[in-house]
């Protein structure tokens, strides 16, 4: 490609206008994308100025009065904001680590299955839930743990009418979020590791066999080191998303009991519920919370990219 560029730049015909004319059809194909990204991604970025304005949804952004950092001052004074931030970090980091470990563990176990039919069937079964929406999964989960669900109904029968509503129990909420996340995603996330494992040279295993290595030694000294680069890359890729701790999941599973206990609300659900659904935040304040989240996430991505490049891994930007 470099060589081509040099030749092109030496050509007397090569001026920008000419090249544009030569590739006019490609430019025609990219125009819809430019329009799309400008409208749906860059206009909302411009809309960030809402965070510094006294704005009402549906109103005019430009003519709304500027109020400086007042929105930020007020959100930083809300205990609910800090509680949501704390929950976001707790849920985001835990989910990241748990799903990371679960996916690798799942891949290692699947890789050790020797009965091919079982392996195929198992993979189909465990990857399936990934394709369901959290609405559906929450429906299934509430049916088991929720009010009038299985556990509640059994408890009522045993305790003589006294119910156990696990979904309303603040101590149970986080374990439920983490385990349902593993239930839904672990199988799907394991595929990428399985693909990497399939690329490991068989000779390594053969050599290990000749040296008399046990199955576990082969796993530890061959398989794990082979998937390490993939694992590190996927881990750093996901760090930028920590503050998006999963709106769909939380929103479909939480309820007023766990929100009031201060364990369930994450930044995204806080923004939506308090700005749009129930009230409590002005749109400007909601935008301020959103901007706070975007900026912190962006800083995380940049930091992670730096660290990755410094430690010799492939960067992400």
């Amino acid at each position, binding site marked *: 490609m470099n060589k081509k560029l040099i030749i092109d730049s030496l050509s007397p015909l090569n001026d920008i206008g000419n090249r544009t004319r030569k*590739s006019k059809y490609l430019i025609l194909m990219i125009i819809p994308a430019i329009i799309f990204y400008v409208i749906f991604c860059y206009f909302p970025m411009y809309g960030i100025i809402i965070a510094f304005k006294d704005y009402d949804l549906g109103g005019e952004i430009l003519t709304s009065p500027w109020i400086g950092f007042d929105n930020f001052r007020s959100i930083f004074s809300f205990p609910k904001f800090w509680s949501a931030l704390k929950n976001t970090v707790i849920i985001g980091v835990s989910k990241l680590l748990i799903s990371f470990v679960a996916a690798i563990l799942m891949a290692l176990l699947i890789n050790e299955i020797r009965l091919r039919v079982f392996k195929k069937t*198992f993979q189909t079964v465990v990857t399936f839930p990934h394709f369901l929406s959290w609405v559906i999964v929450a429906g299934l989960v509430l049916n088991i743990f929720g009010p009038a669900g299985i556990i509640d109904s059994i408890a009522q029968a045993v305790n003589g009418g006294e119910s156990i509503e696990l979904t309303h129990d603040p101590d149970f909420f986080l374990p439920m979020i983490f385990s349902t996340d593993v239930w839904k995603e672990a199988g799907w996330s394991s595929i990428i590791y399985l*693909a990497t494992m399939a690329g490991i040279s068989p000779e390594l295993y053969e050599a290990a066999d000749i040296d008399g290595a046990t199955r576990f030694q082969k796993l530890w000294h061959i398989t794990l080191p082979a998937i390490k680069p993939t694992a590190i890359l996927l881990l750093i890729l996901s760090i930028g998303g920590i503050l998006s701790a999963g709106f769909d999941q939380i929103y479909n599973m939480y309820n007023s009991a766990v929100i009031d206990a201060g364990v369930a609300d994450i930044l995204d659900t806080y923004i939506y519920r308090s700005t749009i659904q129930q009230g409590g935040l002005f749109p400007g304040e909601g935008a301020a919370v959103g901007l706070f989240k975007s900026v912190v996430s962006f800083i995380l991505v940049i930091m992670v990219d730096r660290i990755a490049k410094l430690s010799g891994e492939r960067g992400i930007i």
Partner: protein
Amino acid sequence: MRKFKDIDYLPLRPKGGTFDSKVGTLDWVLFALLFIYGLIIIYPFYNAFLISISPEEVYNSTPFLLYPKAVTWSNYATVFADQEFWNGFKITLILLFVGTAYQLFFTVITGYALSRNKWVGKNLVMNMILVTMFFGGGLIPYMALIYSLGLNNSLAVLIIPGAIDTYNMLLMRNYFASLPPDLEESAKIDGANDIQIFYKVYLPMSLPMLATVGLFFAVGNWNSWYNAMLFINKPELRPLQYVLQLKITQASSQVDNLVIDDKFSAEGLKMASVFFTIVPMMCFYPFLQKFFVKGLVVGAIKG
């Protein structure tokens, strides 16, 4: 790029190795462990189905069922008779066909244009797109935009903003870039322009990848409810998943002080409606699995 069939289902062990193929105790432990895990995945579906076909009094007396004690299809009859469900189904079908075709068209032409070398401004456009993967305006500015475009409360809001999915677009771009560039050169010599080269040469070669990306979009459309929740107030424009969301999770979360639909408070009815939404996915998934796996693996390797 690795071949599709290698990553579809991965061999237990690389073929031709001198491995101990004897099945030992460890294999049985592993089998038992994974079997139990598989049951944990399946049980909620099985349970939902059981409840959906059990008469309410059976469920109330014995909520924990392992097999159906009595079978009734009345829950399904109620769901099928429910106008809101059929309406949601209709909206979802529109999203599934119109939305998927629309998304596929814009995502694929963008991916193709970005996969070609040398056109003025390509790097600028590419960077402009990549920035949006790492930084966004957030919910409130997005809502302000949709309101000011006047898209709220219309079917268009469920389709138009989804035109290009950056991840899938890059997947397409990488795929086009991996195809031999000589084809483009020779088609050029024959006098074809870039659009002709795209749909006569490269598009026919990319059908498996097109299917993969199309299926990702189709699943997304089948599952979509978030935009509807944000922007749709008219009951007749609600897609299926949002109808379900209102009837099931939101009713039980009590966040909204919504009037709970009494008719749908019975677990049997809830599960019948959930199951009704899962079944199409269950029927298609086993046959389409390889396409999804391919998309994931190709995307991650090239990423």
